């Protein structure tokens, strides 16, 4: 087993453990944004798609790189945007009890 593979496996295992540790503390109120944020983080596959495109020299390689880049771009950009949109809705209670007039629709 090469040294680089061994270090990659170590990184993988330790990251898994860090993930378990960090995420088990997230309250269920935030589970949807958490999942959406995790979803955006695996958008890092865009880096993989970029390196693939850099190594491509054949038509097949270009086609695969194009689809991979489009998929990954959608994943990462859309994922972060929608996570942020959700999280900005989570508000603290207003300090003085807020009047309902602006929300009345009757």
């Amino acid at each position, binding site marked *: 087993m090469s040294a680089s593979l061994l270090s990659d496996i170590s990184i993988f295992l330790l990251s898994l453990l*860090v993930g378990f540790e960090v995420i088990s503390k*997230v309250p*269920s109120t935030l589970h949807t944004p958490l999942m959406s944020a995790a979803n955006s983080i695996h958008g890092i596959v865009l880096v*993989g798609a970029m390196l*693939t495109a850099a190594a491509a020299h054949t038509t097949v390689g270009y086609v695969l790189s194009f689809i*991979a880049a489009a998929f990954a771009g959608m994943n990462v950009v859309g994922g972060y945007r929608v996570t942020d949109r959700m999280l900005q*809705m989570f508000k603290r209670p207003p300090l003085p009890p807020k009047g309902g007039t602006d929300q009345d629709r009757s």
Partner: protein
Amino acid sequence: MSTISTVTSLAYLVAAASFVIGLHLMNSPASARRGSQLSSAGMAIAVAATIARIAYDGLITPTGWAVLGAGTLLGAGVGLRSAYTIKMTAIPQLVSLFNAVGGGAAALVAIADFVRLTGVPRASIVPSVMVPTVLDVVIGAVTFTGSLLAAGKLQGWVPGRPLVFPGVRLVNILLAVVVLGGGAYLFSGADNGWVLTAVLLAALAFGVTMVLPIGGADMPVVISMLNALTGTAVAMAGFVIGNSALIIAGALVGASGAILTKLMADAMNRSIANIVVGGFGTGDALDPGAAAIGGDIRQIGAADAAIQLAYASKVIIVPGYGLAAAQAQHEVAQLAVLLQERGADVSFAIHPVAGRMPGHMNVLLAEANVPYTLLKEMDEINPEFPQADVALVIGANDVTNPAARRAGTAISGMPILDVDRAKHVIVIKRSMGHGYAGIDNELYTDPKTEMFLADAKTGLAELTAAIKTLVG
């Protein structure tokens, strides 16, 4: 190590740290948004460093740049547009869709690498590359079709009920044989493109046969599981191309998905294996025709329900799937504001699987401007039910059924909200039909429960209007 590769490696390290800290900041609603922004900044650094690296190396062709630029911009445009326009009720579909493309991209990275390596004369691909390649292709392909199908089910394009076709077990066994046999063949050092294609197709098909028999109510578990799988696929892609950023980020997501899957399965009282095998509540042992409930129920109109709510000093609202389906989050928020103005103590009791994905109900209520301090988790709110003058159940069924506390029912052992311990219970429900488990809800026949049969949206609007006219 050259300067440029040192710089990119450091950039990846910064990105990885920002992902971990970003996830850590999601421990509280107050800091969660900052966490997500930090994580996106880390992502931008990783991408910028990669661009610099590619440009410096100079191995990329002009066509490569064009392909990369056009692909990323196209994907980013589509993603951004859907993220801006999506309705909060449809978030589960969108998350599933993003998950699908992420898994697909991970599989494509490995496939492109395989194609490139087999295109040049060389010794056979070493096992340390071949093993993650096969794993990445298999897991990525399963999540791609599985997540697309899950999104289709959530969107209503594919029926949400469990779809079982005859011979599905046999088909699954055949697919497993192709994947395992092909994988073993490739591991042995024979890098045959046709074998990888067969493995890819079998994995794509398995994604479909895996999700097809799973019912709509099990979706929170399935989405979490597919999320974990995509993370793992991305980590495998990292092994294939030797990139630590992908390995770390993929492992983090894999861990998060695994935890959520376990939490959701526990909250539904199901084992993960049981959900994946499917067939729960499909009606074989139960009688779905017997929708009429045994025992007497008491019906109530909007006016009487309004009076009770108006004079209650502590109200606990229990929103369920029916509220999400009727998109009544704004109506319930208005009612809560009105009751608060009248001096009542109002809180929301949220079961972990309320909604269509983990925590979905909280997002819907946040959208309707309900402050997150009013949203109470099950363990936090259960001791408060005995003090509640009125518990208002809206479109929630199985998660309130006291039968779960007894042995021998379809939901025995499932964690439930202790609604039956409130002093008085009002249930807003469209019909007397059964919940997903297909059994009678004993809460409805409890002497202190009254049923207000109405659609969640119109029922809540009527209640709010009645409180205003009757008691000012």
